[in-house]
Structure formats: C-alpha cells, structure tokens
C-alpha cells in the first residue's frame, strides 16, 4: 500500500498543481472559454456529453486493443522469423523500417478503399503505428543473447529449438515489454488518428471522431474532455503493460528492481 502511494503520489500531485494552475490561468487571464475552458467547465461538459464520451471510449478501447493485439502477434512472429536468419533479417528489416515511416494518416484513405471504412481501417492505422517498436525490440532481445550461454548449450548438443526456448525467448521478454509499453500508447494514438480521418460516426464513433466533431462545432470544452478521456485511455494502456511486464518478470529483470527495494 505504501508503495502504491509512493508510486502514484508524486504524479498525482503534479496533476493537482497543473489543474490548479490551469484554473488560475483561466481566471487571471480572463480567457474566453472557447480558447481555454477552465477545468470545471470541461468537467461539466464531460458530464453533459457523457453518452458520446462513453461510446467513444468504448469504441476506441476496442479498436486500440485489436490494433495492439494484431501488432503484438505480427511483431513477435516477425521478430522470430527475422531472428532465425541473418539473410532474412538483412532482407526484411529495412522494409520494417520503411513500414514505420509510412505516414499512417496518409494511407488511411487507401485502407478505406481496400477494406472499407470503420473498425478494420482504424485498426490498420493503429497496427501500422504500433507494430514496429514491438518487432524491433523483440528482435533485439532475441538476437542479443549471451554468446557464452549459447556455446554452453551447443556443447551439450542443444539444437536451435532448444536454444530458442531456453535462452533466446526468455532473454527477449524485457525487450518485448519495452516494445509493448511504447506500442500500447501508439496503438491508442493510431486508433484516434484513424478515427479522425476514416472512423465511423454514430454508435460506432470513437474518441478521434469526437475530437473532430467537437472542433468543427467550436466546442473547445468538448475537445478538452475528449482529449482527457483519450489520454486516460493511453495511460491505462501503458499501465496495463507495466503491470503485465512486472507480473511476468518482476522477480528478475533489472528495470523492475527499483520497485521491490
């Protein structure tokens, strides 16, 4: 419990200070609400628009989860394939880098053309943005193994599969989770970007759709509420990955040590 307070306390304090400053700034500067609405007004709008925000949260959550899951599957599978052969790695890795640099917003309209609008297109955008960190980090974890350990296993007649299972795979876990932590946030961002340009409206609208929706109607307070809910979702995704990683390897990985001292 004490550890939880130590962990959450400082950032929470910063949050309170920022909200306080925000509230003060609005009052002192006398800014019109549509330029910078105060926290109270944003909160009030969030209540009024709670139905849209709930719908948006749910749809964005679904799309982000599917996008991240797809990125994880393809990223890990891709990393395993690339780790099996230097030639494959050299042939394919540059293309993975290219994939990462493709502006997802720009190709989103093509997804609409190919797979139709809505969830699939949005998920594809999230996938494209989220897949690379998982692939790159997992690959690094798979290949950056202790060569002495590999020698040791080879001397006992271990084959590629045994070396993969005993050494490479567990060795890649911390790298994989580093990738997951980056990609979790990216999946949410990708989803929201996708929703902004190719997302569905109505009951299937996500938070990204409402970002544009509220901005079109000059409702800055609604824009703020949407951004805050989106950010909360991103943080939730990040924390889920942190929790998952310490659950899986909290006992041994160096980066987790600080927590149990």
């Amino acid at each position, binding site marked *: 419990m004490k550890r939880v307070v130590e962990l959450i306390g400082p950032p929470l304090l910063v949050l309170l200070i920022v909200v306080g400053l925000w509230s003060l700034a609005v009052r002192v500067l006398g800014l019109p609400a549509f330029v910078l609405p105060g926290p109270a007004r944003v909160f009030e709008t969030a209540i009024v628009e709670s139905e849209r925000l709930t719908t948006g949260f749910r749809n964005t959550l679904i799309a982000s989860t599917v996008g991240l899951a797809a990125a994880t599957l393809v990223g890990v599978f891709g990393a395993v394939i690339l780790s099996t052969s230097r030639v494959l790695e050299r042939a394919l890795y540059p293309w993975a880098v290219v994939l990462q640099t493709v502006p997802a917003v720009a190709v989103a309209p093509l997804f609409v053309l190919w797979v139709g609008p809505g969830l699939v297109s949005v998920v594809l955008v999230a996938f494209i943005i989220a897949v690379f960190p998982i692939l790159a980090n997992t690959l690094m974890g798979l290949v950056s193994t*202790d060569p*002495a350990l590999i*020698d*040791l*296993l*080879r*001397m*006992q007649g271990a084959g590629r599969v045994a070396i993969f299972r*005993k050494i490479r795979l567990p060795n890649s876990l911390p790298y994989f989770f580093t990738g997951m932590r980056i990609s979790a946030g990216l999946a949410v961002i990708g989803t929201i970007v996708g929703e902004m340009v190719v997302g569905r409206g109505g009951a299937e609208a996500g938070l990204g759709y409402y970002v544009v929706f509220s901005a079109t109607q000059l409702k800055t307070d609604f824009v703020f509420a949407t951004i805050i809910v989106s950010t909360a979702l991103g943080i939730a995704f990040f924390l889920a990955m942190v929790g998952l990683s310490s659950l899986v390897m909290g006992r041994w990985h*160096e980066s987790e040590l600080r927590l149990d001292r």
Partner: protein
Amino acid sequence: MVAASEIRADPVRVSIRDLEKRFSQDVVALRGIDLDVEEGEFVSLVGPSGCGKSTLLRLVAGLDHPTSGKVARPGIDDVPGSVGFVFQDAHLLPWRTARRNVELLLEIQNIPGEERRRRAQEALARVGLEGFEDAYPRQLSGGMKMRVSLARTLVLDPQLFLLDEPFGALDEITREKLNDDFLELTRSSGLTTLFVTHSVTEAVYLSTRVVVISDRPGTVVDEIPVPFTERHRGLRNTPEFVKTCAVVSETLYRGMGER
C-alpha cells in the same frame, strides 16, 4: 555412456597434435601446438593476454575448429556431458533461480525433472551453496555466482573440465577461497582439468603441470611440472612454491621475447 573400463584403458584425455589456428591469412593465433593431458591431471595454460590460450581451450571444447592439425579427446568424444566448460564470468540466466540455472544443461540432456532437481541440489551443496537454491542471480555475490556456474558444469559429471579464467574477475580473498574449494572438488572426484589463467601463482597452486604459451602466434614455450602433493594455505609462502613460480615467470618472459 562409455564404460569406465574403456576409459581407463587409455589414460590420455586430451591429445593435441601440430595444431594451427588462423583467424585470417595474416592473423595466426596458434601454431605448432603439441599437448597431452592425462586422466586426473590438472593442467594450467598461462601466457600473456592475446596469446591464444582461450582459443586453445575453445578448440579443445570443440566450440571452434583448428585450421590444421588435430585435437582429440580419446574415449569421450561425442559423449554428451563428458566435457564441462566454465567461462570467466558466471553467465547465469537472470530469470532462473540458482537451482534452475544448474538444471539448464541437464534439461538439454532430457533428464527427467525429479532427477534433475536432486542432482542440481547435490551440485549446489558440493560448491557450498546449500540453502541458496531459490535465490536469483541478482541476489548472489560475484563469488557465489561463480560457484553456481561451477555447479552447473559439475552436475554433468564431466570427464574433462575446461575452465577459462574462471576466477579472474573475483577479488583476492574470494579467489583464494574458491581455489581451495575447487581443488578439493577436483581432487575428490579425480577430474581431469585444463585451466586457463593469467595468474602464475594460481596456476602453480592449482596444477600438477603448467604449460606456458608464448605471445602470438601462440606456441608451447615449455611445460613445468609442479612437485607438490599437498595444497594448503601456507604453501604459497614456501621457498619451493616461490621457486616454481619464478621458473614459470621466467618461461613466460622467454615466450614474450621470442617474437
């Protein structure tokens, strides 16, 4: 497994003939090496850094292949678990406990879990780590990690024990303590040992024979037999010990001058 009688029939465990190892046309690591290690011997390889002594050990282990010449391990070639190798650092898997680290190589040999567990526990007891079975590497000191590393190899009951500067990274006190414990282990189990070190004292203290390797390209400068039968802490201060060390050092310098 090879029957014990067969092994006894040929007392030579390692046989190296006219061995040469090149890394490229210009870089010759080892040249004209001839060396035999007999059963129960403790042979140390000493030489200046970069002389190729670690390379020689890797060739004996079969981790690398000679450019020309022969390396044979009569009677134990192709017998799984018959050769044990220990590196300079512990090289433990951080995600496994001490016991599970010791079990690693047994898993490769498909030894059932129950037996693996029992043998790992025994091996840890032999290196003095009883009670630390469930500790993770990060909870152990450098010396303790090295003991786990030794146990990981000992558990295989190897016929030939190859060690590449295993205590080089440890402090003096820990190192001497490990030297004694290690001697006890090899003596009690009659292990044949090939030991690479850059410490003359360590080599003389542990070995029955010290092989001095010259600067690159590595060749055998000389072999110095070690006369003592008893090892104890006070030995390092006796005149014979100091004299033997002086001979080894002398030979070492000769090897460095022969460039």
